[in-house]
């Protein structure tokens, strides 16, 4: 069984890209470019991107995929919080039709020689909103941990 990642409500992932930070920031904030790399592989495609790139401005992305009974479309949307080119971009993140809390996504770009370290942080995945500002999360974690650690069978 995998070790429990649920203990933390934040996902941090990094990748090094051989390009200047300016170029990467542009790709993250240009609707035409976003359409080409976000949901671009195989059976999925980005059908609509709308960005109002200023703090408090709204953004949304629509994606479509599948065929026949599996055909589906989804929307993610939110509001820009911080726009600091080419270092930092943060915005709220909501998934359409999902009865779960608003979360926060932050892109950070750090030039390192000929490459740029790109870090994405998605936080609030088990936020206060989820558990209605009660201190329920530690209990849920401990119940889950006890369940996962119990011997199989």
């Amino acid at each position, binding site marked *: 069984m995998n070790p429990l990642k649920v203990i933390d409500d934040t996902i941090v992932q990094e990748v090094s890209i051989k390009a200047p930070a300016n170029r990467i920031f542009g790709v993250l904030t240009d609707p035409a470019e976003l359409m080409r*790399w976000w949901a*671009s592989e195989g059976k999925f495609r980005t059908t609509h991107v709308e960005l109002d790139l200023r703090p408090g401005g709204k953004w949304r992305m629509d994606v479509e995929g*599948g065929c026949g009974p599996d055909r589906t479309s989804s929307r993610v949307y939110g509001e820009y919080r911080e726009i600091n080119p080419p270092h930092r971009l943060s915005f709220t993140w909501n998934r359409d039709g999902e009865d779960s809390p608003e979360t926060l996504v932050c892109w950070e770009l750090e030039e390192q020689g000929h490459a740029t370290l790109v870090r994405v942080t998605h936080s609030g995945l088990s936020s206060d909103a989820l558990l209605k500002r009660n201190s329920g999360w530690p209990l849920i974690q401990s119940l889950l941990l006890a369940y996962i650690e119990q011997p199989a069978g």
Partner: protein
Amino acid sequence: MWKPSGYIIGNRMVTNKTRQHDAVFRAIADPTRREILTILRGGQETVGHIAENFRMSRPAISKHLRLLHSAGLVVTRKRGTASLCSLNAKPLRLVDDWIRDYETIWNESLQSLKKYIEEKQ
């Protein structure tokens, strides 16, 4: 009726587990129900004994137990005239799954971004 089989985020389809997911999230969002889960950690209990821990009426506690039961978090068994409740933490995995889905999504999105930028120049 047409029913979407999942969500697409980035290049990933996330299977639709929304209904059970919502039931579990709703069940654990309430402090009384979390208190009941805490009591049941110690082992199985009768409804009467659970209700003794609260100021609210027994029917009110039964209602909370029904909600926990429908989310799959509490299992009820009859013993004589009493109902014995026990904890089933398995559905809580859905909470964990939700976070795991996003881990995969961001991992793939970063790879997709890297590929797009590096192959284009």
